[in-house]
């Protein structure tokens, strides 16, 4: 069963001049994790805002947990959890105060809200700091508390919008640990990220979006296969470059790419391990000493590059949409 379905979502800003969502469709199978991958301004946040009832799309259709998002937003809010790009908690209050308050806003009784707050603080390793104002928390702790606040009612569907953006590596690892635990417990999760390794690590399925559109979909492995299979990469000394290239091309049965500066030869291969062994044998016979030798799977960076023609982190290349999202943030309100 699909827990999230989005069909042909369109959202424009500035009277249609900027198409934040341009006929975007995606779905999430119950109990799985969908990673929505894209650069800044690709439409990730807009997608989450529409699915979590914060924003009305111009057209299109969306269903979350079997409930129509546009027709019945209030019922959707009963079954979702949302944790945005910024820790949306009251910083002057303590973690405990925040969780109790949000619990009461989910209509738990005062005592239920207190019990749930304590559970969540413990679950997210915040029990020791629960009674300190959030102002004194580290970025990672704030994010964990924010995530905890979105789990008060044990939502059927959880939306995490760039959960680790702006965190240091340690905070990121902690957050991944927390999210992986949630996933094991069976939550349905839609997660946006601009970090390719994050999608790789956490998601069952990945959609790549760019300029408000889904441009590719699949598992991390299948996306990598779309770009091509494995590559052999070899570094040899200068004088061996030419003979080594001949051997590699013969075995790979394809044209090799040679980087003279790095003295690196690389070529796509079909049968990775076997080809690698053949190359080693060939080198041995020709008395060529390899300085470095590797079999590489394409990274999701390669995937993005080959799908969009620009790098994932390259913000300037998707001009308008990016500009729109920044302007929107500055303006404090966009319609």
């Amino acid at each position, binding site marked *: 069963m699909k827990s999230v379905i989005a069909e042909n979502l369109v959202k424009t800003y500035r009277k249609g001049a900027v198409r934040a969502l341009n006929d975007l469709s995606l779905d999430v199978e119950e109990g799985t994790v969908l990673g929505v991958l894209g650069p800044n301004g690709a439409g990730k946040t807009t997608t989450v*805002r529409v699915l*979590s*009832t*914060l*924003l009305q799309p111009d057209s299109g259709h969306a269903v979350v947990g079997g409930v129509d998002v546009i027709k019945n937003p*209030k019922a959707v*809010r*009963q079954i*979702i959890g*949302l944790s*945005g*790009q*910024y*820790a*949306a*908690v*009251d*910083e*002057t*209050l*303590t973690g405990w*105060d925040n969780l109790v*308050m*949000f619990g*009461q*806003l*989910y*209509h738990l009784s005062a005592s239920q809200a207190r019990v749930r707050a304590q559970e969540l603080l413990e679950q997210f390793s915040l029990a020791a700091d629960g009674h300190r*104002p959030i102002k004194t928390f580290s970025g990672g702790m704030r994010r964990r508390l924010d995530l905890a*606040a*979105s789990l008060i009612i044990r939502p059927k569907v959880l939306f995490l919008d760039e959960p680790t953006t702006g965190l240091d590596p340690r905070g990121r690892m902690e957050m991944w640990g927390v999210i992986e635990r949630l996933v094991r417990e069976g939550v349905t999760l839609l997660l946006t990220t601009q970090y390719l390794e994050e999608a790789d690590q956490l998601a069952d399925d990945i959609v790549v979006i760019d300029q408000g559109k889904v441009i590719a979909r699949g598992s991390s492995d299948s996306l990598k296969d779309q770009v091509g299979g494995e590559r052999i990469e070899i570094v040899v000394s200068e004088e061996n470059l030419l003979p080594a290239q001949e051997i590699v091309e013969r075995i790979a049965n394809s044209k090799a790419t040679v980087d003279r500066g790095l003295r690196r030869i690389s070529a796509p291969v079909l049968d990775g391990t076997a080809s690698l062994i053949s190359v080693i044998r060939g080198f041995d016979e020709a008395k060529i000493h390899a300085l470095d030798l590797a079999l590489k799977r394409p990274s999701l960076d390669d995937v993005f590059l080959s799908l969009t023609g620009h790098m994932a982190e390259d913000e300037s290349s998707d001009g308008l949409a990016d500009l729109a999202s920044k302007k*929107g*943030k*500055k*303006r*404090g*309100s*966009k*319609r």
Partner: protein
Amino acid sequence: MNGIQDALVITKRQLLQLTRVPEVLIFNTIQPVMFVLLFRYVFGGLGVGIKGGYVQLLMPGIFVQTVTFTLAATAQGLAQDMEKGLIDRFRSLPIARSALVVGRTLGDGLLNIVVLIVMGTAGYIVGWRPTSGALHIFLGFLMLLFFGYSLSWAGIYAGLISKDARVVANVSFLFTFPLTFLSNAFASTTSMPKALQYFAEWNPVSTMVAAARQLFGFHNTFGVTAHSFPSEHPIVTSLFYMVIIMLVFIPLSVQRYKNANSR
């Protein structure tokens, strides 16, 4: 009933904030008390010929000024929630759309109760003596609270359309500060240029001040607009203004909140 309950949770949050950051409450009460003392002793000489002295004229004026500043406080509080992205969280909860803004206006109203009590006490200490009896005094304070509450809704709207909490607080202040001085709050309007007198005496701050003076048992004086409707009926005029302010800003704010987008 859930809607009211939700709003009260938000109000409670604001009271909790005051216990976590007591400086806010302290500053909020010290400032008006300071005004009471400064005006009482700096301009005390203006009250020559006034029965009971200048402080009788001053206190209603300063009460109104203080509750007028609620507009800036509400705007700033809400703008902060916008900045921090808290609005998104509240909007993704299964609560009434009005809960956050209603809760905040109630919270700011409660804060005004505390502030008015402290100011009234300070005024009493420096010689303010309302003469109209308990019921009218009570009604006077009730009306002051309601005036502040209606302005809170203008603050909600300002907070929702603003980009920055500090900017909106300053802009609101730039708007309310002259409004409280281009009025009869601290001096009789009769010494102003004629055009300003008209403005000052139709100014909602002035009608509210006149209403409060009347309810506290002090007879107000009017300049060019003597015998005009607001001068004859300051209470009715003020109530009318409050209703108008709320009729304008509540729907505007609710509409804006629906489409609010933090950051």
